[in-house]
């Protein structure tokens, strides 16, 4: 018990921090419906726990308490990882309670914000970038795919490393830093940018229609497809099924107007 209450108060070595960042890439490896990302989080935290708790028994106790339910957006989890590591390094009489409260307070907010930023904003924007390049110049399709992968993965990898480093440095004071970042406004900006790219892509789709068929066939067919899909989605049909209906209709109509 004494070992658990009196951890070593030192800073982590660079190699330990790097190991934690690499391990954090596997945070979803054992994603499960009982405790979601808790095991992946513990896996990423383990090098720090080994450093903080040299005694095997106190390390085991610390590890067990990190297996409590934990779920957030996996990229933003690195920020929580940094803050929790700092709390563990600092130690104190109620480190377990402090760590639990940090995780509970941050995981919900980061979950919602991260889903909006990465899944609903950045990922579609990167995909649209590839599609626009393909639409404008099909011979550069590979360039488009690489550009999308670099844009998306480059940003999220940078964000993961940066958020871990800032979390580790600032600890609980990270809330002030995050307020300065204006993340909710940034999410709005990313989604507006994605909508702008979607507009460009829509124009490119109509333009390609004009190139490959005629402006009448391409433009009107694309507009009809958008209208039909919007209507089918209004009827709450799944996007995959919408695709089948609209494409089947296009095949029939296209063959008929031949």
């Amino acid at each position, binding site marked *: 018990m004494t070992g658990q209450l009196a951890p070593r108060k030192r800073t982590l070595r660079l190699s330990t921090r790097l190991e934690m960042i690499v391990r954090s890439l596997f945070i979803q490896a054992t994603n499960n419906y009982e405790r979601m990302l808790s095991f*992946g989080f513990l896996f990423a935290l383990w090098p720090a726990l080994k450093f903080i708790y040299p005694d095997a028994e106190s*390390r085991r106790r610390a590890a*067990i308490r990190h297996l409590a339910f934990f779920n957030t957006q996996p990229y933003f989890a690195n920020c929580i990882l940094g803050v929790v590591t700092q709390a563990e390094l600092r130690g104190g009489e109620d480190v377990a309670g402090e760590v639990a409260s940090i995780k509970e307070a941050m995981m919900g907010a980061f979950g919602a914000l991260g889903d*909006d930023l990465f899944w609903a904003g950045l990922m579609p924007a990167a995909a649209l970038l590839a599609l626009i390049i393909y639409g404008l110049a099909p011979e550069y399709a590979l360039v488009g795919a690489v550009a999308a992968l670099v844009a998306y993965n480059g940003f999220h990898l940078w964000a993961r490393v940066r958020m871990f480093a800032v979390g580790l440095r600032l600890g609980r004071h990270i809330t002030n830093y995050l307020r300065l970042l204006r993340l909710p406004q940034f999410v709005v900006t990313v989604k507006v940018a994605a909508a702008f790219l979607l507009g460009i892509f829509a124009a490119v789709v109509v333009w390609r229609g004009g190139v490959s068929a005629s402006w009448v066939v391409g433009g009107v067919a694309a507009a*009809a497809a958008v209208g039909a899909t919007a209507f089918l989605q209004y009827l709450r049909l799944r996007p995959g099924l919408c695709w089948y209906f609209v*494409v089947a209709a296009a095949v029939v109509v296209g063959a008929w107007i*031949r």
Partner: protein
Amino acid sequence: MGQIPVGAYVPPSAPLTAAAAVGLAVPAGVPLAVRAVLAAAAAIPVGVAAGKLDLWIKVRNVGILHRAENDLLDNRPHALGGAVVRGVATFFLKDFLLLLVAVFLGAAVLGVVLPRVPEAWYRGFEVAFVVSPAVGVAAALRTYWRRRNALAFAVGAAAAALALTIFTIAL
């Protein structure tokens, strides 16, 4: 598009659908439009199956969690790494095997179907090939339908239409 996993919703795996579609569309012999549309049609069920398998794996991972927890309680912390390797391997095998089976099986099926597509339908497939991305645009529009996003969409579309018109005239 329209397949974006937000919150608790588990959609079909879009990357796997795309990879399967590319793999299926490669065999030559008939026009690109016919191959691409039929390949996409065959690939969508692969993405749906991957989504369902994801659910199953997340249920199965509860067992991995409990085993690892017992290992920790028994002072065998080295088992942590093994559990993560098993988790990664499961997700990898799921995607890899599913894609492998889907591409080979799908290619065999398309190999039978493609030569039987009447040439009269080629024009229909060309139109379907052109409108396919428009379905994605409509699905994505539903996701982004807020006033400020709609304005950004309109500005993007108008700017691109203007630029492309000038480009086409210049050509």
